[in-house]
């Protein structure tokens, strides 16, 4: 468990320092490696640290499962690569020149690749790992190229030089496009997301939590660092691109998530959605900055940062929850679960909090960040260009739509997994997981609630980041004290999470108390079964059934493969004995984007390989004609 040690070490370093590091910015050149930590990286450090800490609590109990399962899986390798993975992320945050950045970036990719390929006996995992590494590689190359453009003008690969350089708009845009491509691929933005839902689910759950919860954030960190810090002068067109792609990712991500019945896969897709939200926030802020409204830009940036934080928390929580479920039931398929709330009550509570948070419901943290994003979007009238003014609200509406779809999605998850009655034997006999796992989930859940209720406090901490990047903090987020959240001014919008929280509790309690003044006995009875025989678990709505209406409305989004086969009774052909229905909702990006590219490569390879005929005459002819050609060229 060397990895675990590494984790703990990293975390303790953080828990002590993260807050202090937030303020101070120091640079230390070592050999050729420039390392530096400033508020931006400090913030991300804190995010990473929090999650890593929680997960380190989770791991021991969780891994016991693996050892019991398959002796040959070496925990040492797992621990080692986990450690390297985390180390890589820390280094990315610390890097202060492109070289170190790339090294640690790829270290992160490769080690996580090994983690994805950890349970390699399953072909799907291998395929996922391959795809992941491939796309990570391509993304990395794009990033490298982006840095190259900056360095080409800056003359050096240190970030200092890059900050100093003034790029021509065209080159700046090219650099941005490259970086956006690379980092976006890592962050899983549509349509470069294909690796994500493949790779995240197949890793061990705590790794999935790390990848979805943190690694995506590190990618976003790279994007922010590159765009705000290194390139510097931001153009609003970039923001527009980012906004559009962000909205697309949000909507598609959640729609795809809705139709998944494999829990971890679903969560992975919902990560895409949340990344979309974050990108939208960033896009907004870039639009504002690009058009000279820095204050609003700050607002958007803060919204994005806050969502980064929240998503790290609740997505980590949910993946850990999924891990806990798998640990207790060996199930990932929702349609085999059910009734877990009675088997694993505490996990159920934590998971519920996670679901509420990710669905962006008040008064939890997910809501705060979405609220901020909306507020940013609502400042569109400040813009001169009518086009932007009309695009932004639409994207906001898309955001709203996806928020509700997310809610739907997680009603489905929670309802099917935890409520109702068990749909399979193993689920019916699930046991609550051990204390460590519960602790880690509890911690994350608690943080979700806290960050939901005291946003002002958190934001006043985050302030340092825009302070550093844009030279000014948000105008008046917390001027009215910790109680009120007023991003622009109390006149424009205000939200007091604590009061809301308290009020809801109070009203609920009051009504409860009032109603229980006269203790009426509550009678327990069988549920109403319309007078037919008793209900059984197969009569419940399955996840697939639950998402059916949505699937019918947004049908064009997926490549749907639906087949219904009825087994008729031969004697009475009109009577249907049984009926099987199975539905595959495939990601359209495959058929549209990836398979064509793959085939292109294969065909090219086939064509190219024509030149090697195996006949020595041909080979001699090659060198013969090469010679002739060259001689002819040079004279």
């Amino acid at each position: 468990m060397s990895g675990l040690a590494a984790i703990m070490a990293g975390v303790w370093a953080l828990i002590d320092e993260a807050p202090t590091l937030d303020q101070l910015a120091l640079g230390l050149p070592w050999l050729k490696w420039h390392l530096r930590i400033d508020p931006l990286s400090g913030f991300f450090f804190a995010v990473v640290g929090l999650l890593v800490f929680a997960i380190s609590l989770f791991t021991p109990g969780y891994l016991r499962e693996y050892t019991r399962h398959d002796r040959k899986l070496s925990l040492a390798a797992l621990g080692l690569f986990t450690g390297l993975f985390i180390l890589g992320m820390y280094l990315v945050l610390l890097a202060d020149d492109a070289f170190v950045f790339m090294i640690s970036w790829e270290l992160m990719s490769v080690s996580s690749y090994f983690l994805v390929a950890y349970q390699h006996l399953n072909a799907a995992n291998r395929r996922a790992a391959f795809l992941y590494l491939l796309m990570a590689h391509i993304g990395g190359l794009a990033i490298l190229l982006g840095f190259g453009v900056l360095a080409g003008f800056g003359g050096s690969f240190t970030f200092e030089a890059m900050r100093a350089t003034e790029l021509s708009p065209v080159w700046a845009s090219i650099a941005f496009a490259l970086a956006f491509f690379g980092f976006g691929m890592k962050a899983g933005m549509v349509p470069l997301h294909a690796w994500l839902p493949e790779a995240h689910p197949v890793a061990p759950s705590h790794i999935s939590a790390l990848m979805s919860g943190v690694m995506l954030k590190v990618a976003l960190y790279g994007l922010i660092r590159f765009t705000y810090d290194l390139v510097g002068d931001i153009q609003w067109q970039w923001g527009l691109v980012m906004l559009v792609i962000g909205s697309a990712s949000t909507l598609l991500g959640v729609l795809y998530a809705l139709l998944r019945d494999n829990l971890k896969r679903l969560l992975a897709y919902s990560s895409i959605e949340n990344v979309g939200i974050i990108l939208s926030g960033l896009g907004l802020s870039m639009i504002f900055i690009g058009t000279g409204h820095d204050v609003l830009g700050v607002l958007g940036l803060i919204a994005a940062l806050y969502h980064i934080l929240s998503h790290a928390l609740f997505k980590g929580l949910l993946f850990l929850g999924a891990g806990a479920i798998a640990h207790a039931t060996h199930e990932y398929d929702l349609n085999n679960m059910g009734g877990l709330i009675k088997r694993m009550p505490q996990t159920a509570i934590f998971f519920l909090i996670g679901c509420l948070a990710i669905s962006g419901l008040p008064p939890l943290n997910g809501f705060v960040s979405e609220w901020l994003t909306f507020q940013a979007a609502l400042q569109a009238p400040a813009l001169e260009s009518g086009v932007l003014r009309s695009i932004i609200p639409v994207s906001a509406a898309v955001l709203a739509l996806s928020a509700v779809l997310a809610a739907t999605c997680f009603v489905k998850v929670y309802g099917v997994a935890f409520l109702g009655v068990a749909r399979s034997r193993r689920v019916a006999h699930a046991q609550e997981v051990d204390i460590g796992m519960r602790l880690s989930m509890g911690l994350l859940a608690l943080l979700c609630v806290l960050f939901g209720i005291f946003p002002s406090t958190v934001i006043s901490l985050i302030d340092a980041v825009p302070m550093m990047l844009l030279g000014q903090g948000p105008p008046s987020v917390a001027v009215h004290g910790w109680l009120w959240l007023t991003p622009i001014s109390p006149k424009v919008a205000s939200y007091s999470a604590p009061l809301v929280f308290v009020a809801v509790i109070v009203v609920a309690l009051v009504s409860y108390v009032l109603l229980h003044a006269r203790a009426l006995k509550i009678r327990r009875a069988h549920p109403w079964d319309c007078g037919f025989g008793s209900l059984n678990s197969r009569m419940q709505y399955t996840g697939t059934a639950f998402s059916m209406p949505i699937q019918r409305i947004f049908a064009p989004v997926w490549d749907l493969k639906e087949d219904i086969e009825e087994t008729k009774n031969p004697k009475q052909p009109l009577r249907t004995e049984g009926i099987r229905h199975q539905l595959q909702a495939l990601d359209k990006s495959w058929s549209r984007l990836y398979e064509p590219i793959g085939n292109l490569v294969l065909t090219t390879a086939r064509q190219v390989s024509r030149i090697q005929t195996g006949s020595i005459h041909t080979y001699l002819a090659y060198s013969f004609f090469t010679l002739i050609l060259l001689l002819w060229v040079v004279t």
Partner: protein
Amino acid sequence: MNTVALEFNLDWLMALIQTLLFVAMAPLLLGWIKRVKCHMQNRAAPPVLQPYRDLIKLFRKQTVIADRASWIFRSTPYIVFGTTVLSAAIVPLVAVDLPTAAIADVIVLVGFFALARFFTALAGMDIGTAFGGMGSSREMMIGALAEPVMLMAVFTLAMSASTTNLSEAVTYTLKSGLVLRSSFIFAALGLMMVAVAEAGRVPVDNPSTHLELTMIHEAMILEYSGRHLALIEWAGFLKLMIYMVLISNIFFPWGIATELTAEALAIGVVAITAKLALLGVVLVIWETVMAKMRLFRVPQFLGFAFLLSLLGMLTHVVLETGG
């Protein structure tokens, strides 16, 4: 200093009173609607106070809960009721500038509805009957389609008033007097359609049916009984009223009290009553001419609503700000 503190408390007191008033008036509104409806369909009309009676009856009755029900099922009614009351508290009914309005803005309001819906849907699935799941699934679908429309409508308003704070918005329209805004008209229409959908009225849903093929909201709360049912019903009334108040006060704010003097408040009360009564009639007419539509026609319905509010937004951007 002292007076300030006093005033402060007075504000909060007023807010509390207004909220209670809101909660109290909700069943009345429903009763009124039912009555008018019956008159229109010339049936024998129940008294206006009938909803109160129903609630009381329900509160008295013993509560029966399915043996599989978990704590989610039991706590849902309270949560739903709590959130709805809270959202009622932030909607200016008779007076603006009340402190409660600052607690949360319209986005939070939408958030509350979503929260309530979330829990109702969970409760629907808690028992594990086919009806519950079906209801939840349909409810979530409708909610998913309705919410963006509502936000768009509200955004139109918020962008012209440049605030998302309800009472601010109201005062803004109040100040700007009677201006013919095409955007507002579109937004208002859109909002009405959403209100119909969200409050589960014809043509989207029919609160008075228990035919499994058609019921949506009823299917979720099928398992509820006694006081739980009462709370949920009450919350439903509240929701309807909130929507109507929103429509009436945001788009036709005239008469609402801007300062806390007795006569202003009196006027406010009268005004809102009149407006609600009127709206109720409109709703009834609408429900009488409309027929309940198939579940999968609802998307078209809401799509049209979305189109309306989008138009509202665009007209606002294009026509009214001259960008």
